[in-house]
């Protein structure tokens, strides 16, 4: 069944799941350190911001590709 999903959709959803896994499973504790400082930020803060940014960019890509369901674009234009 999964094979019916467009590549883009699969990629988007896998990446989003990855972001949530990194930020919200106990995996986050591996980044639980004040040092080293990256870009002037404590490591834990930097790590959270980094994955938040990746998530936000993914949402933007999702918007551009209609959440991976490309064909919608053609359809709604024809309306």
């Amino acid at each position, binding site marked *: *069944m999964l094979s*019916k*999903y*467009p590549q883009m*959709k699969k990629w988007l959803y896998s990446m*989003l799941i990855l*972001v*949530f896994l990194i*930020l*919200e499973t*106990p995996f*986050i*504790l591996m980044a*639980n*350190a*004040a*040092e080293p*400082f990256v870009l*002037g*930020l*404590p490591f*834990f*803060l930097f790590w*959270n*911001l980094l*994955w*938040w940014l990746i*998530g*936000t960019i993914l*949402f*933007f890509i*999702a*918007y551009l590709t*209609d*959440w991976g*369901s490309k*064909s*919608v674009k053609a*359809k*709604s234009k024809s309306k």
Partner: protein
Amino acid sequence: MTVGVLIIAAFMIIPLVVGFFAASKSTKTSEDFFIQGRGMGAVAVFFTVAATWWSSFAFLGSNATFYTSGPVYLTALAWNLLFGFMYYWVGKRVWYLGKRFNYITPSDLLGDFYNNEKLRMVVAAILLIFTIPYLQIQLTGGAYLIEVASGGVIPFWFAALIFYFIIVIYVWVGGIRAVAWTDIIYGALLFFGMLFAGIYISQYLGGPTGLFKSLLENSPEHLTLPGPLGTSGYGQWFSLFIVTAIGAFMGPQIWLRMYAVKSGKLFNLMPFLLGFAAIAYMGSVLTGFSGVLLEPDVANADQILPIMLTKYAPFALASLILAAGAAAAMSTANSQIHAISTIVTLDIYQRYANPNASQDKIVKVGRISLVVFSLIAYVMALTVPGVLVTIGIAALAGTAQLIVPTIGAISWRRSHPTAAMWGLIGGVATVLLITFIPAFSAPLGFHAGVWGLLVNSILFILISLKLKRTDEKVVKRFDEARFDYNQEYHPELIDDSIETRKSI
């Protein structure tokens, strides 16, 4: 001080003007008063959802939590992403069903899909009971800010009173349109206020990097979990993420903002906008952490931001930012009051007391319940003490339980009314037990809301698998709606759906 009072006055008068202007645009139907005739455009939707979702909890609670408990509130970055994702995935489906079957309240959807009158009432009751404490903290938060911004000239009880008086007036005249329009102003103020306050205050410690460096020397435990008190570890990290995002998302005020949207396209963009807005939390990081170094002895942590501002920023600037904080409270409170009055009017009054009520009568009852519920929240704000975040989370844990039957209704044809009912009862009972009986307090460090959701989901799935729905007609109607939804928005799924349909 006079400047402060003037800024607060302006802040109070502007929404009234906007409210009356919005009222001039309205039509006299209940659908217009409650969900703006399903015609809300992109800008209004984004700001009203964001400003409603970001409450005093975000504005004061976030600073307070960074100040007392270290970095656990950073989990907000992820919960904003989750909230955004749900607004797309759940919200768009709810919107679609709402448009198709003409729903206005959350109980309309759940009551219709599960085809069960008792469930309908339980849903309305959960929404009312758990929204009121959350509303109460908005009032408390907003009144704190006004009290401090006026330099104590306006006492807490009076601040809270003015607050509610103004909300009631503009919601009364303009309905959800007035709420959404004022939220545009509030949302912008809130976003920049939060960010700017942090950047400004951290200048006293040599900017963000200087601040973090000196925090590392003086109080390094503020930079890692479980924080200086040792209580905010992974359990709390995960609990906040789940309970805050889902609880706020299931609040009736957000739910109405799914129905009100004009175009389905907008849901695709919202996760990005809502996710991006989370950058404002960096302001709270800076303010809260600066507080640790500059003002280590503040007794009520919820007041850390107002105290820092009045001490370290020029008075006019401080008042402006505090007004932004009051905006955070106001923009959530106005939507909640409006949503509560919607539920009372449509789910209780129209459904049970007077099914043949005219449009005029419905709007009138909506307005009266506005006043009554605001009054209850006002009395609670004066009499029930507590820290914003704690009360907020407890209330959110209750509304969060609705996510289980909701996802069931939009995605699983086997979802059974008995399962939804027992799931909700089990979930809410778990939340109440763990919250109010000290012996059960937060097993394994996870909040009552997380356990509630777990019990709720297990009951829901098991009972749904065990029972079979007999009301084929309703199930079929929703199957068709899902099929049409996919055809319109996810054509790649259609082949599957056809196969599923054949197998029905």
